[in-house]
């Protein structure tokens, strides 16, 4: 990727963020909930309609849509995402404190996913159309069709309620508390990824160089690990980037089940309490992180695959 391309991507990311910001702002504008009422409800006193109207004016909620949007956007660009209605703290601070737990959880589940998917995907590819391939494909098929929240609930009921090995509530980010949410997330992902590893490896196995290597009598496992695997990495890394991205949206379910203190559970509680600034901040930040990860993946191709470096 040249600097010119990089510049274009950065501009694109910025444009998408502006688009997303408009959409989320429109969404909160159209939403039927009343933030002022919710805000007062959170403090426990419900004042008269006049007082609420006055608060609305103070907060600028009575101004025309585009004025509000422009004002909000310009403050966002200066790094001020407002204050959460329900938690009375700056949005950025709240998101920041929840970001690391979610990243940790995502990384652990991606790690678990890779340790399952790569060996099994390769095993299935090498034994194409044999019983072991059928077994792996069958299991992954069932895995894709399992709702992840159900997997989470089953894990809780087995390991926490029945065996009492692990805590039901994962209130902090120690390994003991993270393992079950991570397994929940890794479950469906592994199923998907195993199939993709299989496809990617199969594609490489059909290349001429594999036949050449076999003809020269190189051992099969050497061909597999030294030639085929590195060559099939490229599509896998793209998919890895995408799955980390989809984790950002997907962690919510696991975080809610295990009461894990991450971004997802914060967002869910923000939405249920009509905490507009927090929801807007959450959507914008996940979008930004997602796009930055994908950009990083694209840049990494330069280092992994010299062919791409040559092309430019």
């Amino acid at each position, binding site marked *: 990727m040249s600097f010119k391309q990089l510049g274009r991507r950065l501009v*694109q990311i910025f444009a998408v963020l502006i*688009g997303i910001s408009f959409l989320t702002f429109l969404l909160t504008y159209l939403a039927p909930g009343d933030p002022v009422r919710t805000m007062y409800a959170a403090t426990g006193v419900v004042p008269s309609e006049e007082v609420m109207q006055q608060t609305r004016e103070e907060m600028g909620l009575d101004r025309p849509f585009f004025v509000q949007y422009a004002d909000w956007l310009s403050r966002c660009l200066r790094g001020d995402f407002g204050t959460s209605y329900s938690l009375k703290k700056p949005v950025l601070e709240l998101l920041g404190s929840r970001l690391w737990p979610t990243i940790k959880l995502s990384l652990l589940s991606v790690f678990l996913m890779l340790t399952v998917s790569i060996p099994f995907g390769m095993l299935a590819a090498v034994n194409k159309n044999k019983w072991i391939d059928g077994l792996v494909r069958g299991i992954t098929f069932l895995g894709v*069709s399992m709702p992840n929240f159900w997997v989470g609930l089953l894990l809780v009921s087995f390991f926490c309620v029945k065996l009492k090995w692990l805590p039901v509530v994962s209130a902090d980010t120690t390994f003991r508390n993270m393992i079950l949410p991570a397994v929940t997330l890794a479950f469906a992902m592994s199923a998907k990824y195993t199939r993709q590893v299989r496809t990617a490896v199969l594609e490489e196995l059909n290349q001429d160089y594999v036949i050449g290597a076999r003809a020269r009598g190189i051992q099969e496992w050497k061909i597999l690990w030294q030639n085929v695997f590195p060559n099939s990495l490229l599509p896998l890394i793209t998919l890895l980037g995408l799955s980390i991205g989809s984790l*950002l*949206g997907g962690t*919510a379910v696991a975080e809610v089940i295990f009461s894990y203190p991450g971004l997802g559970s914060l967002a869910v509680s923000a939405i*249920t309490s009509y905490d507009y600034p927090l929801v807007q901040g*959450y959507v914008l930040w996940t979008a930004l992180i997602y796009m930055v990860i994908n950009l990083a993946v694209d840049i990494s191709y330069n280092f992994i695959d010299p062919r791409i470096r040559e092309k430019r």
Partner: protein
Amino acid sequence: MKSFAKKNPAFLLFCFCILLIVLVAVFAPFLSGGHDPAEGILANALQKPSGEHLFGTDKLGRDLFARVIYGTRTSLTAAFSVVVIIFLAGTILGTLAGYFGGAVDMVIMRFSDMMVSFPGMVLAIAIAGMLGASIQNAVFAISAVSWTKYARLARSLVLKIRHQDYVAAAIVTGSKTPYILTKYMLPNVLPTLVVTGATDIGSMMLELAGLSFLGFGAKAPMPEWGLMLNEGRAYMSSAPWLMIFPGLAIFLVVVIFNLFGDSLRDILDPRDE
């Protein structure tokens, strides 16, 4: 017909299974054994599965079997609605964008670029949650973030034939634009999009159930599997049946729809393995 059945026994089997599921949904009142899914008798709360209550009862004493059976209606209607909406919106907008190009294309494609470079579920959660919990809003939220995939697909298929000679010939010989769109473009777009739609029913069902589980979909008395799992969560140790049966129901139905989608793809698109 006979040779088709012989060649694709699996496909017919899955079609039959889906027919069964649809029949369960349609005839839910007859299958639920006289129990009303919304009516609870508190004295019967949290009973174990028995002859009277096949799947046991929930915290309000409602018959879980009846609720699971009626849940088929909710899930099927919602998932079919999503797929029909995104299929129609994607096909129409994508075909128009591909055929006319220009400003229409620009707007539609920039919008779908934006949706692609962004985790859809995050936006779906925000949309469904902010608009208020209801199954209609959940359907709207998931449709809003999913239609772009269909639009891109339709557009790329149209672009492939847009500049073929026979299309140019049709234009030169005076065929009207609506005629070209429906007789030349659509037949070229539909098979791929139908397959995509069929393979997506299962995953749409999962996403809808996920939203309901989080509390952003179906609302309380409604029999919906995701919501039932969420309600049963608190009684995990005392009433495990509350989380086993609705979960199994989602799992089974999604497996069948996924198998159906895969076999349909195998039939219509032999290139794919």
